[in-house]
């Protein structure tokens, strides 16, 4: 049995629940024979992938839903083999090149060449081009993006690229200007509530409005997360009640505790304890940038304005270094140590001024 998220995912542009104007625009786009490269951008859980799949269905018919997954092997210039999972149908191919880490450039070039050099088998009534869907495009290295720019122009006759990104900030301008950007904003709260209620209706469950609202609050307007939470809640307690508890995400609780420990004590011994906790988080596969953001949000929440500014200043610096460095733990820990330093200084100054 599929999760609700997949089970009730809209399959056609006309059945999307929100951003209906945009869906209409996308249909207009499909009606024309020509088609530009597209870039869908929006926060996670806003429905980028759903829209891409609906768009493909609109263009090619239900054939795009017959998916198969393949593992493709690429050889890098340094003779290293890289394996990447792809999901494809007869008309499109979906890939996440950042799986290959720093070798994403090879993947982008080879893959697109492979796909683009073969023509569509039956042209009658079909588009002349295939579509390559690149997910998590903002994780692509600059090198790969430059390679992409060249290949995009070269093979424009036989393939179109759809990139899905969280934010366009990390995409180089050359790519941005070659794609038609489609902004997918997160659904607002009432939209999520109505979707949750519809889903429950189709499952034959009654959902109290209060509970729905609380789920929405916790989900941070991430529709996927909201649906998953609701399903988890259903597993915990079958007929919903208004004041039912919604299970929190474990790592968020863990992170919150870590932050409060940092606030409570600032000593080298504590720092070592914190290191263990940070390792724990990293081992569980929580992305380091989420850890960073969570830590900053929690730490800053009960500080004075001057400390907030200082903390953020250091946070941005260490986070930036973390992105270019390889060992995440160093930078996380450096930030924690720096924060302890700032905080302790602030406390001791407070005591000093009290004395006089």
């Amino acid at each position, binding site marked *: 049995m599929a999760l609700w998220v997949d089970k009730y995912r809209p399959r056609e542009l006309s059945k999307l629940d929100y951003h209906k104007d945009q869906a209409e625009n996308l249909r207009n786009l499909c009606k024309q024979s*020509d088609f530009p490269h597209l870039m869908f951008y929006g926060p996670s859980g806003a429905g980028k992938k759903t829209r891409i799949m609906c768009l493909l269905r609109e263009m090619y018919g239900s054939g795009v839903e017959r998916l198969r997954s393949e593992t493709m092997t690429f050889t890098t210039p340094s003779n290293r083999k890289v394996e990447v999972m792809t999901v494809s149908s007869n008309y499109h191919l979906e890939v996440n090149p950042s799986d290959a880490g720093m070798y994403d450039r090879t993947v982008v070039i080879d893959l697109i060449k492979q796909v683009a050099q073969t023509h569509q088998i039956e042209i009658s009534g079909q588009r002349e081009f295939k579509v390559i869907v690149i997910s998590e495009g903002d994780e692509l290295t600059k090198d790969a993006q430059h390679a992409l720019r060249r290949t995009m122009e070269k093979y424009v006759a036989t393939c179109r690229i759809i990139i899905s990104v969280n934010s366009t900030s*990390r995409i180089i301008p050359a790519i941005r200007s070659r794609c038609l950007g489609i902004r997918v904003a*997160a659904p607002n709260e009432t939209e999520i509530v109505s979707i949750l209620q519809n889903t429950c209706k189709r499952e034959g469950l009654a959902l109290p409005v209060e509970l729905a609202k609380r789920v929405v609050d916790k989900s941070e307007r991430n529709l996927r997360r909201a649906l998953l939470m609701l399903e988890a809640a259903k597993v915990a307690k079958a007929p919903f009640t208004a004041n039912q508890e919604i299970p929190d995400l474990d790592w968020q609780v863990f992170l919150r505790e870590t932050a409060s420990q940092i606030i409570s004590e600032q000593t080298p011994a504590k720092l070592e304890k914190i290191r263990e906790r940070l390792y724990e988080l990293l081992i569980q596969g929580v992305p380091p940038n989420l850890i960073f953001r969570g830590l900053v949000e929690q730490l*800053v929440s009960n500080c004075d304005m001057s400390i907030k500014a200082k903390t953020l200043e250091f946070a*941005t610096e260490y986070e930036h270094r973390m992105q*270019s460095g390889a060992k995440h733990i160093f930078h996380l820990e450096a930030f924690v140590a720096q924060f302890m330093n700032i905080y302790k200084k602030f406390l001791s100054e407070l005591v000093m001024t009290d004395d006089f």
Partner: protein
Amino acid sequence: MQAFLKTGKSTAGSGDKNQGATTTRRKPPAPWVEKYRPRNVDDVVEQSEVVAVLRKCVEGGDLPNMLLYGPPGTGKTSTILAASRQIFGDMFKDRILELNASDERGINVVRTKIKNFSQLSASSVRPDGKPCPPFKIIILDEADSMTHAAQSALRRTMEKESRSTRFCLICNYVSRIIVPITSRCSKFRFKALGDDKVIDRLKYICAMEGVKIEEDAYKSIVKISGGDLRRAITTLQSCYRLKGPEHIINTADLFEMSGVIPEYYLEDYLEVCRSGNYERLEQFVREIGFSAYSVGQMMEQFVEFVVHHPGLNDPQKAKICDKLGECCFRLQDGGSEYLQIMDLGCCIILALK
């Protein structure tokens, strides 16, 4: 095709093959940028000095080595292509070697490909007996992204082959071209297009393509594009594609299309910072994240906004812009959007105190 056959130089066999290819494959519709590229030098918008010089050159059938520089979308590539098309006519394809940044252009290419092409001698008569200038043109587009080593390798080639080859370098920043190269070329600066020139061109295209558009919308396109005609035309076409031919294009569509952030977001951001309330700032930043606006884009627009803002004094502007630069750099380098914009916000709060 007809002209090609009339010359009588090609064999019947090759002609048939070409014909077969054209019937089976439909030609994809060209982007408007390509479709409305100027065909001859006089069509080029605005750049009067360059056009005047080039017109003389076209008449005289000779060309100096040239360096064209200026902001993107002002017609540098179009101008040189139009000029060479006028000079060479049908033989245009054989006499031109065009390399841009996406082609491999390291020192090896300069040593082999460019050198070989420049050493070919060009005849002074066309296949049909008419005279034509006895040289070829090598166009190096986006020359500022060539390495210094590659540029140096070009120096000697430029002089030695001057009898049969002209070089045309095109770049955005002339400061990135090494001096020995600039001194070998006559330099032409392309200035950003005036608003009315862009509007004229857009109006022409709209009339030709049957685009329905509101009068105000022209101004918005100009604002979005900032004197870059290519971007203006691309924006127009994207909008037309997305909305369908019946829709009358208006300002809101254009802003949505280009990913430009509405002005009131910038005002709100400054207002929130002025209030000095961290919680409100955080709330606001989240809101931006949810509506999927790009923080990078926001920072770009924010620079303009701050610099021209009447309510800030100079030290405040300096402080904000300093931070803005730092945050922008980190963001491009892969830093987290949330942290960068929060940091900027805190800096503004402190600066406004």
